[in-house]
């Protein structure tokens, strides 16, 4: 169900340049708008921090003696980078947008803006505490994305559950009978992360090899059942809104939702192929990795087909290209993931930098681009403040060129490492082979980092400027398609 409000200009791509007629939204509760904006602002802060950490580590691979102090050591900065962009940037950015989507598609106000602010506070404290603890070496060791020690993780989980309750109660108070498909993904995501986060931290089944099984499950489903779910949920709202047309197929969205739950959950063990993890578990993971093609192509093509015949909008909208790029990356990265799971491909690419390229294609090319597209597409309509369109263009091109350079160079680096190992060369040869590619990766990373600074400027420009007055009753002309 897509709600299109013609009177608000939804569905009409605005021309490039400032739109003098743009007003703050008169139909959305100001508190909801403020909450969404506060989440995006904090997210942007963590994006800059996480980017700095990532860039520093990239530089250190070429110049290992740069900034050789304990808290900036490669091994400490790496989890700072991953956790900051996961739990700081991506989670806050996605949830800020999701809370707005939940309220809007339910035709309701956010159940409790206060609760969301409390959650945001908890998440900010967790992200800051995580950064400090990891930097001083207080860590659970290299267990990816669950390096944060207990107290930090509990703070994050508390914020997660409060936000989940808030989203659920908002949908429960909806003014229309249907639960829009976005809310399936968003409410699902809150359930799934709660379960997988708890599973990752409870120790009773994690002695010895048990820990490895949980690690595979945890790091894989964190991406698939939280970031992917939220990104798709937001896409199912933002893309039709920005393009002014309904989603290509509602039913494919539903199919994608259930198959994503079934297949994604079962494939974590494909991170430990050829390991002592039971063979049946590895084979199940490989089989269902192939099954992943169902939700990916159903969901990805569904969103892609929604773009069909909208080249005029794409030329004029500054939000749509981000979303299109995000969806294309989603299809590419998931297909790549399936291929990597095969034992033969795994033999060449496992343990190499190819994995780093894969994770950036997903968390950056897909998730981050969706956040940007949705933020640019939705925020100005809510706050009445638009960013400078030239700056948005600069952001887009720096980010996309930067990350394409990044992903291609690091994937080549990974392939060269794999080939060197298979050829039986001395290990250091694989380091030497990768080194020039690491330099290219850093170059791409610099472009990405600059684009993030531009994004920060643009977020500030989209702040709720004029007082958001509670609304007079909106005029008619509301179509539900």
């Amino acid at each position, binding site marked *: 169900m897509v709600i299109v409000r013609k009177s608000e200009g939804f569905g009409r791509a605005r021309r490039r340049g400032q739109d003098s007629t743009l007003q703050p939204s008169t139909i959305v509760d100001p508190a909801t708008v403020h909450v969404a904006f506060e989440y995006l602002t904090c997210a942007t802060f963590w994006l800059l921090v996480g980017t700095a950490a990532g860039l520093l580590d990239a530089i250190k691979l070429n110049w290992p003696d740069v900034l050789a102090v304990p808290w900036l050591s490669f091994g400490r900065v790496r989890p700072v980078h991953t956790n900051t962009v996961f739990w700081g940037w991506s989670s806050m950015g996605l949830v800020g947008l999701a809370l707005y989507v939940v309220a809007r598609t339910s035709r309701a106000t956010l159940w409790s803006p206060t609760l969301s602010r409390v959650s945001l506070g908890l998440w900010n404290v967790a992200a800051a505490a995580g950064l400090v603890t990891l930097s001083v070496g207080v860590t659970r060791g290299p267990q990816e994305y669950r390096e944060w020690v207990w107290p930090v993780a509990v703070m994050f989980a508390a914020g997660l559950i409060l936000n989940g309750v808030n989203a659920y109660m908002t949908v429960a108070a909806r003014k229309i009978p249907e639960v829009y498909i976005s809310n399936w993904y968003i409410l699902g995501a809150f*359930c799934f992360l709660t379960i997988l986060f708890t599973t990752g931290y409870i120790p009773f*089944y994690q002695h010895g090899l048990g820990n490895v099984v949980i690690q595979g499950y945890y790091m894989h489903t964190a991406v698939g059942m939280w970031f992917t779910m939220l990104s798709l949920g937001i896409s199912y709202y933002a893309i039709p809104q920005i393009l002014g047309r309904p989603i290509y197929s509602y039913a494919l969205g539903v199919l994608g939702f259930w198959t994503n739950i079934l297949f994604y959950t079962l494939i974590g063990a494909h991170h430990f192929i050829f390991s002592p993890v039971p063979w049946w578990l590895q084979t199940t993971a490989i089989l269902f990795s192939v099954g992943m093609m169902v939700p990916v192509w159903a969901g990805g093509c569904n969103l892609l087909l929604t773009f069909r015949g909208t080249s005029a909008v794409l030329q004029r909208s500054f939000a749509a290209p981000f979303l299109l790029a995000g969806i294309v990356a989603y299809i590419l990265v998931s297909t790549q993931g399936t291929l990597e799971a095969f034992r033969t491909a795994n033999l060449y690419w496992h343990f190499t930098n190819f994995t780093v390229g894969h994770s950036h294609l997903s968390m950056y090319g897909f998730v981050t681009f969706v956040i940007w597209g949705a933020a640019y597409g939705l925020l100005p309509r809510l706050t009445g403040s638009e960013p400078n369109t030239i700056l948005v263009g600069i952001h887009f091109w720096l980010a996309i060129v930067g990350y394409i350079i990044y992903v291609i160079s690091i994937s080549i680096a990974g392939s060269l490492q794999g080939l060197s190992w298979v050829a039986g060369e001395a290990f250091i040869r694989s380091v030497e082979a990768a080194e020039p590619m690491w330099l290219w990766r850093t170059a791409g990373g610099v472009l990405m980092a600059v684009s993030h600074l531009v994004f920060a400027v643009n977020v500030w420009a989209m702040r709720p400027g004029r007082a958001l007055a509670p609304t007079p009753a909106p005029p008619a002309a509301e179509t539900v398609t």
Partner: protein
Amino acid sequence: MTFHTSHRALVGFAFFTYLALTVLIAIVPAASIQHTPAIPGATPRSAVAEQGRAIYLREGCGFCHTQFVRDLPLDRPYGRATVAQDYANENPPLPGTERTGPDLSNVAARQPSDTWHLLHLYNPRAVVPQSVMPGFPWYFEEKADAAPGDVVVPVPPRLVSAKGRVVVARPEATALVAYLLSLRQPELPR
């Protein structure tokens, strides 16, 4: 009542489906293999090596060094294939996902010299010029003279700040080396 109109049914079903799958694919398999016993005759780590392992975790060494040898020709240089028993007393085990540096499951057999390891930790490029590993100079101390009992590291003069000064390992460095030298795959019983 359908999922399209009942948020309660939708969220409840999604929650419990995911929980059930989690139990089936992660918790039950993990619980069933977590108590695989250690290889008979494997020597437990010393207290010092255990301290070294804590430093290994703290410094994030496991992000670049695996401890997971696959039964594949390209993994032969690192030792025999890792078996479940190898992780028996590891908390957490450190199989790793990336090999920016070589696997360390059996590094003590490949590189048994404590002097080499100390030098390598102080500055990896002192022993492997092309290495990109970070050095850990903060676990060492430069002194005018070594005191009795000090572990002196034979650092090449070009890497010492002033002529005649000596580099001495702090307890953290010796602990880390003790841990690395404990990484020796026990033989599998026949």
